[in-house]
């Protein structure tokens, strides 16, 4: 029912779920062994930033264009031509189509 053979190995989500549940219980058990003197509603819940005031909510929200900035910056040589390829110009869309057709017709005819 659930045991899927994938060529070499196999994959069983139910077994995996059992394993995950077991691991979670284990983790919860370990976590519950920790100290329990944390109190809600006191100063303890507030973050402590070396005595500086806590920044506003909209300031600590990371904007989407900042995520993976470093990744894109590192691969600049790859990304610049790639984004340059997506010109948004209609004749380029058709151009790639015709180019692909020309290339593939040639390849299929020759090989």
């Amino acid at each position, binding site marked *: 029912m659930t045991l899927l053979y994938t060529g070499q190995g196999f994959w069983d989500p139910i077994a995996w779920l059992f394993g995950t549940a077991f691991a979670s219980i284990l983790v919860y058990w370990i976590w519950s062994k920790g100290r329990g003197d944390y109190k809600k509603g006191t100063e303890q819940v507030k973050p402590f930033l070396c005595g500086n005031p806590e920044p506003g909510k909209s300031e600590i929200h990371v904007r989407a264009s900042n995520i993976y900035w470093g990744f894109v910056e590192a691969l600049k040589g790859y990304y610049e031509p790639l984004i340059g390829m997506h*010109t948004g110009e*209609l*004749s380029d869309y058709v151009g790639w189509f015709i180019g692909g057709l020309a290339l593939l017709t040639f390849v299929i005819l020759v090989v």
Partner: protein
Amino acid sequence: MPFVVVGVMLALGLYAILFSKNLIKIAIGLSIVESAVNLFLITLGYVKGAVAPIYTMAPAGKKMVLPTPQALTLTAIVIGLATTAMLLSLIVMAYKHYGTLDIRELRRLRG
């Protein structure tokens, strides 16, 4: 001989689609390509010295051209009209939005 003309018309239409900067010209190019395809289909069914496949008052003792391409072309013509109408109405709408039909300026969607 019509086959050559089909090729030339296809090339002309593709030229219009690829290298012109105006969307109406692109629509015209598409229309030309579509006419070329219709002509191609009809030419496939032509038989030398034959008459149309209609028995009403036909001249006696002649062969008939192949009817299937004609049926297909009929379909293709109506489809072409539908495409052209849809495309042109979209183009009119785009003009109402952008104030131009130059494809170099119709590219807010890119990257």
